[in-house]
């Protein structure tokens, strides 16, 4: 039991991170039908910027975190403004493949910038509130895991309020359902697109900061995290918010349990094996509705 709990704790922690990344994918996908392959790089920026602000800038953790989230959000806005919008805004628009290549180019570019400015080494953030593990039924829970889970819950609640209760949140939701109709009722869909990049970058940045004390951070950690976040988003049903959260947690748990009970060598493969199986049997994802396409 203690062993199982131990695996479940680590699975939930990792799963929460995947969920945040997957939410970022869903947000941008809903606003534009773009899959943003630079999503993982937001995670990198969040963690690395916090480290840089603390060691280089001498900021305390409490100030460095919001500053790093802001920086990541700004990078997200810049990505939309200078790389995605020029392509989409052209007469005739841009094909899906073009946009995918642009975001991949952006991810390589961001990795390059981080590597040049902050180096290739692993960096570590101090845990937010000490490292003395808490004993629960014989399993050891890191206090940082509680931070990860707690903040993720807060973020989900905040997003729920934002999309359900605020005017701009509803405008974003409307745009995701029908872009043209949203435009017709006076919603500035370009602003919605811009905001979705900023918001999803902030989510990714936050995920990077939360996980940095546990997994360390480096200029290229975003590749795998981004891909697994994408897998989580598809698992839950692309574009579905609750789906992204369920998909992330499910992947995290499956990965931790498989690593614990079966083989840790194939830990990184678990997410992708699951996604292949799901695509075979239930292609619209766990919570995704059946989609039909307009002709």
């Amino acid at each position: 039991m203690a062993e199982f709990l131990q695996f479940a704790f680590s699975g939930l922690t990792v799963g929460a991170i995947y969920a945040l990344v997957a939410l970022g994918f869903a947000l941008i996908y809903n606003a534009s039908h773009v899959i943003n392959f630079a999503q993982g790089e937001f995670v990198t920026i969040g963690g690395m910027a916090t480290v840089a602000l603390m060691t280089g800038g001498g900021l305390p953790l409490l100030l460095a975190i919001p500053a790093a989230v802001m920086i990541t959000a700004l990078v997200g806005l810049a990505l939309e403004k200078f790389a995605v919008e020029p392509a989409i805004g052209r007469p005739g628009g841009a094909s899906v493949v073009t946009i995918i290549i642009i975001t991949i180019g952006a991810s390589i570019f961001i990795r390059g910038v981080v590597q040049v400015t902050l180096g290739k080494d692993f960096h570590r953030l101090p845990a937010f509130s000490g490292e003395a593990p808490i004993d629960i039924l014989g399993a050891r829970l890191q206090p940082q895991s509680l931070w990860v889970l707690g903040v993720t819950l807060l973020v989900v609640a905040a997003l729920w309020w934002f999309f359900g209760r605020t005017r701009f949140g509803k405008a974003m939701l409307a745009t995701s359902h029908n872009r043209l109709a949203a435009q017709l009722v006076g919603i500035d869909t370009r602003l919605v697109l811009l905001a979705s990049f900023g918001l999803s970058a902030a989510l990714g940045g936050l995920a990077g900061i939360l996980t940095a004390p546990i997994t360390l951070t480096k200029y290229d950690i975003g590749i795998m995290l981004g891909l697994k976040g994408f897998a989580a988003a598809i698992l839950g049903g692309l574009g579905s918010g609750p789906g992204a959260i369920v998909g992330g947690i499910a992947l995290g748990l499956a990965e931790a349990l498989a690593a614990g009970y079966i083989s840790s060598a194939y830990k990184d493969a678990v997410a992708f094996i699951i996604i292949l199986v799901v695509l075979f049997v239930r292609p619209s994802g766990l919570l995704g509705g059946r989609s039909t396409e307009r002709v």
Partner: protein
Amino acid sequence: MRRLLDARTGGLLALALIIALLPLILPNKFYYDVAIKTALNALVCVGLNLLIGYAGQISLGHAGFFALGGYASAVLTARYQWNGFAAMAVGMAGVGLLAFIVARPILRLRGHYLAMATLGLGIIIAIVLNREIPITGGPDGMTVPALRLGEWRLIGTTTWYWISGGVLLIAVWLALNLIDSGVGRALRALHGSEVAAETVGIDTTRYKVLIFVISAVFASLAGSLFAHAERFITPTEAGFMRSIEFVTMVVLGGMASTYGAVVGAAILTVLPQLLTKLHDYEHLAFGAVLILVMIFMPKGLVPTLQNRLRHLVGGQPR
């Protein structure tokens, strides 16, 4: 002049000429090696271009097929003393079968699902190659025996230059023929409007699967040739970034343009060699080039330049 701008006659001739004359200006082995890598990357891209440019599907896992072909050759010849050509054929058949099994259920779907499935498949292949150390040698890679044709050992960069150049030329010819056949017309209809294609009786799923399998087999062949040419292979060949490289080559050169795929492969194989001079700034520059080309030439280099050239020659721009 028009005729020379035509894909079949002029293009094939030009490509053959370039391959034949290039050795005159290649100064040493290093450049031959870059040329071999260019030709083999181009071989993958000619196949992948059929999938991306004509079937309108994206694969983010073709490096997996490339590496599977390479490791089929490496493992079967090194560990089981198979004949190199038999190993190559088995690799191609195996990869084709794998592609068929994966594609059949998934290509019924639209949008990003094939991207996700191929991405997952490629990563799983890379992880397996890294972990099964007794068979594959793990992350350190493994040495590959020379390819033998009877008593003749095919070694050396000049030999492999002609082999990879020749195979590329045949592959381009095959691809051009395929595009101009009924299959190609069906694919173009499918890319234009899948629903319209279906209503006129085209089994769109069947064609998409066919093209996916063909492109995977091309990649497998390229991988086998690569393993024998370099006499060494590592799991990085299966990596996600390598898959991205292939897709980027196709898109940069120009989707739905077979020569575009070749040009894209040439540029993106040579460019990193030049960018190594930038040391740490290499990735930064590479990413920036990708973004800029996609923003300013979304159709890719070759179609964009072709249009300009046609315009100059006096035809109507498309």
